[in-house]
C-alpha cells in the first residue's frame, strides 16, 4: 500500500471563486456585507430599515439568498434597490459560485455598497467565503445569550453583531450584558449594535457603523 500526500483545502475551489468576487468588488469600489443569522432573526426587516436610510448616499444592491421562495427578494425589490435572487433549492448556505452568478446580473461598476443576505443558518455559511468585506451576524433577543458560545466560528469571523428585536426585552428574560460578555469572549473585536426594526431604535447607529467600516476599507474609500 502507498500513501499519497495531498494537503489541499477541501473548499479550495470555493475560496478561489470568492477571491475572484473580492477582486471584482474591490476594483469597482464596492463595500460588501455578508449578513448571517438563524431563520427569523430579522435580516430582511433590518435591510428594509437600512436601505431607505442609505440609498440616497450610496448606490446599493442586494443579493438575496433563500432556500425556497422569493418572498424576501420581493420585499427588498419593493424598496427600489437592484436585487439578485438566489434560490438554493434546499441548499443551506450560499457559496462563492452562486454569488458570482448573482453579481453578473447586477450593475457592479455603479455600486458603492452590496448586502448579501445569506440563508438563515448559523452553521454552514461560516465555512464559505463569498468574497465579502465583512460578515455581520444578526441575532434576536428571543434566541438566548448563549448563541456566540454555540456558534463560535461565525462570531469569531464577524466584524459586527446586530442584536435585533430589543423592543421585546421587557417581556423576556434576556441579559444584554451577558450576551456581550459571551460575544466578546469569542471575539474581543466584535462591534455590537442593539436594534429594533419595529421602533427603528439603533438603526442609525448601525448605518453609521457601516459608513465607518466602508470608509476604513481602502479599496472602497478610494473609489
Amino acid at each position, binding site marked *: 500500500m502507498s500513501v499519497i500526500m495531498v*494537503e*489541499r483545502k477541501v473548499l479550495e475551489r470555493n475560496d478561489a471563486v470568492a477571491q475572484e468576487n473580492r477582486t471584482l468588488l474591490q476594483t469597482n469600489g464596492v463595500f460588501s456585507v455578508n449578513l448571517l443569522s438563524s431563520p427569523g432573526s430579522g435580516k430582511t426587516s433590518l435591510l428594509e430599515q437600512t436601505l431607505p436610510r442609505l440609498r440616497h448616499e450610496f448606490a446599493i444592491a442586494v443579493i438575496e439568498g433563500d432556500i425556497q421562495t422569493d418572498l424576501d427578494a420581493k420585499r427588498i425589490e419593493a424598496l427600489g434597490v437592484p436585487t439578485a435572487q438566489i434560490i438554493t433549492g434546499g441548499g443551506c448556505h450560499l457559496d462563492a459560485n452562486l454569488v458570482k452568478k448573482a453579481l453578473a446580473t447586477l450593475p457592479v461598476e455603479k455600486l458603492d455598497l452590496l448586502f448579501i443576505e445569506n440563508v438563515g443558518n448559523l452553521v*454552514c455559511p461560516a465555512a464559505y467565503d463569498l468574497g465579502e468585506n465583512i460578515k455581520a451576524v444578526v441575532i434576536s433577543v428571543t434566541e438566548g445569550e448563549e448563541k456566540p458560545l454555540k456558534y463560535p*466560528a461565525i462570531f469569531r469571523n464577524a466584524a459586527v453583531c446586530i442584536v435585533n428585536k430589543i423592543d421585546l426585552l421587557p417581556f423576556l428574560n434576556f441579559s444584554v450584558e451577558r450576551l456581550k460578555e459571551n460575544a466578546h469572549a469569542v471575539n474581543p473585536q466584535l462591534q455590537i449594535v442593539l436594534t429594533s426594526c419595529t421602533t427603528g431604535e439603533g438603526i442609525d447607529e448601525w448605518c453609521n457603523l457601516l459608513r465607518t467600516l466602508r470608509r476604513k476599507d481602502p479599496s472602497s474609500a478610494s473609489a
Partner: protein
Amino acid sequence: MHELSIACSLISIVKETLHDRPCRVKAVVVRVGRLSNVLIDSLEFGFSALIAGTELDGARLIVRQPDPLLLCGECGQETVLKEFEFACPHCGSLNITVKGGDDLFVESIEVEEETAS
C-alpha cells in the same frame, strides 16, 4: 446540512489527485478542525453515499480532529484551545490567534497500486 457538499468537494479533490492512476483507494484521510461545524457522522454518511458504485467504492474516510491551538500575541505561549476560552490561560490576554480551528483539508490518500497484469 453542508456535509454533503463538503463530501462532494473532497471526493473531487481525490479524483483529481489520482487522475487515471491504476489503483484502488483504501482510505482518504481528512483533517477537520473542531471549530468547523462539520458533523463527522454526516460527513462519513455523505462520503459513503456519494462513492457507492463509483471507482472509489469501498474507500474508508478517516477523520482526524487535532486540537486547535491558541497562540498568544502578548506572552507568546502556545496552548491547546479549551472550549469557549478564547483568552490566553497564562497571561489572560485576548490578543490571540487560533490555529487549526476551522481547518478542512484532504491530508492524504491511501491506495493499493494495481500491478499491470
